[in-house]
């Protein structure tokens, strides 16, 4: 669903809503997967991101997003200098992530590492600053960054949804949407939970510690306002 404020917005540093603001938001989402600024990152740019990214500041925007700068932060202009000064090891590569009809033209795959945590995220910038995360660690997902989101993969055990819902309620978190999918009965169940409030890392840790949860990630809202 398109929001009016996505159209009249975001307020952002130029020059391109898809190549700069959207790219920054994808960087912000990737950063969440390791709970903070990654020490190293491999950033694989596809399609128009690869062909015209430098001129649009896509590299600066993704690096800035990975460091926690938001799309309206004027530091994005000098994000690569800040990255160097901070001693961060972000590598940019041009690649092809699939056929033109299968992969959105503005797509990036970001591998982030912070201390002992590593994650791989693929996402696209859809225009007007809107983004869609399409893969996390190889699992297909749909995360927009418009709300705080928890994604998790669990064994298909009875009562898993109730258990997660209780856990979130105990943390005073209200569920906005919940999508559950699985490939087959008894196979891995996949949950994407959008929340009205921002969960802390503690919530992710608690979910991750459940014996039947394979992995869980928290992605913060990176909306325009």
């Amino acid at each position, binding site marked *: 669903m398109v929001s009016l404020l996505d159209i009249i917005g975001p307020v952002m540093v130029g020059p391109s809503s898809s190549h700069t603001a959207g790219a920054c938001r994808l960087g912000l989402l990737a950063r969440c997967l390791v709970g903070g600024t990654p020490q190293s990152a491999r950033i694989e740019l596809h399609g128009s991101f690869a062909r015209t990214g430098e*001129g649009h500041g896509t590299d600066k925007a993704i690096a800035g997003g990975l460091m926690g700068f938001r799309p309206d932060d004027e530091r994005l202009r000098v994000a690569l200098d800040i990255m160097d000064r901070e001693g961060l090891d972000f590598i940019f590569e041009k690649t092809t992530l699939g056929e033109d009809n299968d992969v959105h033209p503005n797509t990036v795959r970001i591998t982030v590492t912070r201390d002992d945590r590593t994650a791989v995220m693929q996402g696209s910038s859809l225009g*007007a600053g809107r983004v869609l995360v399409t893969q996390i660690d190889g699992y297909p997902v749909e995360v927009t960054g418009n709300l705080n989101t928890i994604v998790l993969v669990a064994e298909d055990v009875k009562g898993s949804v109730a258990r997660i819902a209780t856990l979130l309620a105990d943390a005073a978190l209200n569920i906005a949407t919940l999508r559950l999918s699985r490939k087959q009965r008894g196979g891995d169940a996949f949950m994407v939970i959008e929340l009205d409030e921002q969960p802390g890392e503690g919530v992710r840790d608690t979910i991750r510690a459940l014996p039947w949860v394979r992995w869980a990630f928290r992605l913060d809202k990176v909306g325009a306002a």
Partner: protein
Amino acid sequence: MYKSLADAIRDAESRGVSLATVALEAEAADGGRTIADIRDALTRALHIMRGAITQGENPALRPESGLVGGDAAKMISGPPGPLAGTLFRDVLMRALAVQEVNACMGVIVAAPTAGGAGVLPAVLTGIALAKNISDEKVVDALATAGLIGAVVAERASLSGAEGGCQAETGAAAGMAAGAAVEMLGGTPTQAGHATALAQQGTLGLVCDPLGGLVELPCVFRNATGAAIALAAIEMAMAGVTFAIPVDEVIDVMGEIGKSMDVRYRETAGGGLAATPTGRRLAKERLVQIKRAGG
């Protein structure tokens, strides 16, 4: 949010309210925010739009590439043309100013996108100044523009990489035209015709920036996009109608975008970007950006 402008126009006219009203109600119903909150966010957007115009009036403003800059200032202090001293010239100045600030990685409101960010503020704030229209009404117009843009996003695209420049400055011209007509007292139906008239004038417009930089022709295409919006506004206010319904014009814009060769969709592979001079300038400027350590 609405997926059809015809639906929004019907709802507004059956209740005797504006498109801005049904847009704000639909946005509030979608969740999370009150109408007052949404209006606050739009008011902030209006202030940032005006701030960008003021910054862009500075003749010394130049992006790292040096490809564009200083042209908004020429519209203020350069020699007169046949439209000197008119709203038309002022709107062109405003569109150039916002887009020059954007090229400098300055702060703008992407409405609908950064590449097309000059059209809407230029048309709305230019008309508001000339016709002494209150900020409250300009904020309503931003809501109407947001509704139109949301319908375009749903039915077609707002991304140059997907749909060419018709999806960025073209969509912006359609949004500005419809919103301004309502701001000037036109009916929702007239606003719909204004959007159709502006969008039809940009069908097929390719996205062909030199070196992929949102500078050339983007800065100028925002000015010409604003001019098309003004043309559509003047016609719609006079009672001119467009025979193809606005939703169908938007649909066909999306279809044209899908069938557009990838060279014409923000890849710098075709159009002005692929001209001999376009290629040479892009090469020189990209080298310059790298040397500057950017």
